[in-house]
């Protein structure tokens, strides 16, 4: 099953930054098939009826219940959706698994348990396991018979994952590896049966292994966490733990490839999960704002609350456009192959986009739950209402699967790496732009025509701003660019806003083309407000980064170009936000 139209072409990873796309080039939630919608319904029904009411029990660490819920979800096919049929799965597309992730995101704790089971715990085996290992473990993990976990981080190596100290050595008879070491923050650590563990062979060859729970493998006590309290997180101690050689993942010394590739997948799925959480938080917020009366009126009738609801909807809808556009790219690139390695290479192609999605969605999600608390007021601070938990639960998303900071640095980092290796024509584009910047004026005086033409111009200009910053940074720092974290993070934010704008514009244009003017109106408001605000952020980020790199005439020339690129007549965002909020207030739910 694939909703991606046959004519949809494979795009080069990162090329969004230097090329223009048309609505038909992007995949949107409006392109879901009937089956996709049914998968969403089934997952939502399961989560709402079976899991959400039982979160209090999970928060008391009832891991037998967690096991039972994983098994029930597995019976529906939620875990094995992505696993090929020969290994006990359903062999469905990436979009289906993202839709499942989104719906499971309605319960943060279970989403974490589930993400370790069906994502980072399972995928290394699927993509890097030997045939024996795949046959042995994948059916049992897909069915929920075995609980899986992923053990990469150590006390001393978090973001710097390759500095792990855990060791593995081949036994004298060459039949198995013996692992020693300690791992930290292991999701499902308290009850998992099988672990994907990273350790160094001969002290320096970072490698991945499948390890079953056994004597010598013990977990620490449950961590006392800020949120996702209904998921198990423990340390893990490996003391002369044995695993047969066929449980080696990939090759000795190639563990980094596994760890980072799996995180790419984890990242776009995390984006989808955040999106599901945001939709629920917004839905609850709209209902509460309609119910809660102050000064004789529902608080939803006040502009201060409307502005919040509208901004929450904007971030949710734009974030969704980013998630599914990215998945669409991956889908198109992987649809013609069943070879796991080829699939993985295709996904790796979009590593920058996956990081963008991870950073943007986790931060949008944190914004949404923060405003949710605010809308609930005093009740938002009470654990008897849903906002408090949503707020605590959301925070981890900015930390795990690569922190926001690591991912921000990865975005320009990976784009530059692709540029250096000739896979992405970033540098010629940057050079061309530099020439353009130096020419007196290149602005056409034509009025923008067509749906969201003004916003599209802003998005294309935003990319030019990104290229200007990246180009300047590359020239100035050359090989030392990777040390310039503030510049990289600023560039990442510009790139992310550009990707967000363009994804949202293309989604709305596609909606306009397929569903007509009337149906599209409410989405045009969203895109216009988002673009209007994004341009301001982009300008501020560009000023900061450029002023840190250039001075004198060079800086003046760059700032003049920046002014041209970010030239925008401010729109009436107040009225637009009221319209956006009113649609939800009237229907008493998140309607976008």
């Amino acid at each position: 099953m694939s909703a991606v139209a046959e004519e949809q072409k494979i795009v080069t990873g990162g090329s969004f930054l230097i090329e223009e796309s048309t609505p038909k080039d992007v995949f949107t939630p409006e392109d879901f098939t009937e089956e996709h919608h049914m998968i969403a319904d089934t997952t939502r029904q399961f989560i709402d009826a079976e899991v959400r009411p039982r979160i209090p029990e999970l928060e008391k660490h009832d891991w037998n219940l967690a096991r039972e819920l994983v098994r029930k979800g597995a019976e529906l096919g939620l875990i094995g959706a992505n696993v090929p049929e020969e290994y006990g799965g359903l062999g469905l597309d990436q979009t289906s698994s993202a839709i499942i992730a989104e719906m499971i995101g309605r319960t943060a704790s279970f989403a974490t348990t589930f993400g370790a089971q069906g994502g980072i715990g399972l995928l290394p085996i699927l993509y890097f396991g030997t045939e024996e290992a795949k046959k042995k473990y994948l059916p049992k993990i897909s069915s929920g018979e075995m609980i899986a976990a992923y053990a990469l981080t150590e006390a001393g190596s978090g973001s710097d994952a390759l500095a792990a100290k855990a060791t593995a050595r081949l036994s004298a008879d060459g039949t198995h590896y013996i692992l020693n070491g300690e791992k930290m923050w292991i999701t499902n650590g308290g009850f998992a049966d099988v672990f994907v563990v990273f350790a160094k062979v001969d002290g320096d060859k970072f490698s991945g292994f499948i390890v079953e729970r056994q004597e010598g493998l013990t977990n620490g006590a449950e961590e006392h966490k800020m949120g996702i309290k209904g998921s198990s997180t423990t340390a893990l101690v490996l003391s002369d733990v044995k695993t047969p050689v066929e449980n080696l993942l990939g090759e000795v010394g190639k563990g980094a490839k596994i760890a980072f590739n799996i995180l790419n997948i984890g990242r776009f799925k995390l984006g989808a999960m955040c999106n599901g959480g945001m939709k629920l938080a917004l839905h609850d917020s709209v209902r509460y704002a309609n119910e809660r009366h102050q000064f004789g009126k529902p608080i939803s009738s006040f502009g201060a609350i409307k502005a919040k609801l509208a901004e929450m909807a904007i971030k949710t809808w734009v974030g969704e456009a980013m998630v599914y556009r990215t998945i669409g790219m991956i889908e198109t690139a992987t649809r013609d192959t069943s070879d796991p390695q080829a699939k993985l290479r295709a996904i790796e192609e979009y590593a920058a986009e996956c990081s963008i999605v991870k950073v943007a969605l986790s931060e949008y999600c944190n914004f949404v739950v923060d405003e949710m608390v605010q809308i609930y007021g005093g009740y938002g601070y009470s654990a008897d209402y849903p906002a408090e938990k949503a707020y605590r639960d959301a925070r981890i998303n900015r930390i795990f699967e690569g922190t926001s900071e690591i991912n921000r640095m990865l975005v320009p980092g990976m784009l530059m790496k692709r540029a250096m290796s000739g896979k992405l024509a970033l540098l010629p584009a940057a050079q061309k732009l530099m020439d353009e910047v130096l020419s007196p004026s290149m602005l056409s005086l034509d009025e923008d025509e067509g749906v969201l033409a003004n916003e599209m111009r802003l998005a294309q200009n935003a990319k030019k701003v990104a290229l200007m910053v990246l180009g300047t940074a590359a020239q100035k720092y050359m090989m030392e660019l990777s040390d310039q974290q503030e510049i990289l993070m600023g560039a990442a934010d510009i790139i992310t806003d550009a990707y967000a704008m363009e994804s949202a514009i293309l989604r709305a244009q596609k909606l306009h083309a397929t569903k007509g003017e009337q149906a599209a109106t409410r989405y045009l408001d969203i895109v216009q407000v988002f673009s209007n605000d994004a341009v301001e952020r982009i300008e501020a980020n560009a000023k900061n980064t450029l002023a840190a790199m250039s001075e004198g005439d060079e800086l003046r020339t760059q700032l003049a170009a920046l002014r041209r690129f970010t030239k925008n007549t401010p729109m009436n965002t107040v009225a637009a936000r009221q319209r956006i909020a009113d649609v939800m207030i009237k229907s008493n739910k998140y309607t976008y």
Partner: protein
Amino acid sequence: MKIIVLMKQVANKDAILRINKAATWIEEADLTYEVNESDGYALEEALRLKEKLGGEVIVCSMGPTRVKSVIKDALARGADRAIHVVGDELAHIGPFAAATILAEAIKGEQSDLVLTGLQSDDYGFAQTGVILAELLGMPHATIVIEVDASGEQLRVKRELENGWYQWYTMPRPALLTIQSGISQIRYATLKGIMAAKKKEIREVTPASAAPNGGSHQRVTKIYFPEKTKQTQFLGNGDAKAGAVQLAEKLRSEARII
């Protein structure tokens, strides 16, 4: 055993309802739909009977293209094939007209059982099933909460009032209207969803029986309950007489004692 399940699509329970301009029905623009609740239980009962006794479950729904989602959902949950009686107006016809058209659509199937929900969540007539049984020449039982189809005769448990139940034995074929909440409805599994793609949905267009031809009733006006306040003085100054009148009114008008 061949079982036909009649399923209706109704407005979503969570939907905020508005009355249409003509004041004849709810405004349908922007409305989302779901399966009629008790019809879902009828399907579940049919699937359980099939699991026990073998056979085939055929789901039948009537209305515009949008009802396909109810059909697809039923197929994903395990129904074997479907009949879709197509027509934009069919969502708004009276029970007699509906039963007439449905009878036409399913009588060729020669089923052993016809199951349906006890009433629709929108119009709430609770008559379509009963009239259909008559048109098909079958016995029927309403508000059924348990079905035993293992013997020669059909045994069904009906819900009566005030916590009373009734076991009822009847010949087959028969039509049963099923009560909500009698079982745990299964989910559509992902496997079921994918399998549903390949299942047959036969489209039928009602022949001569134009919807209005068979309608013995029509909705002339709908409106939200009007809130009115009326004050009555009882007893005319005599407290005792007032109390007697109050007790009488509470019993016969307000019906709360």
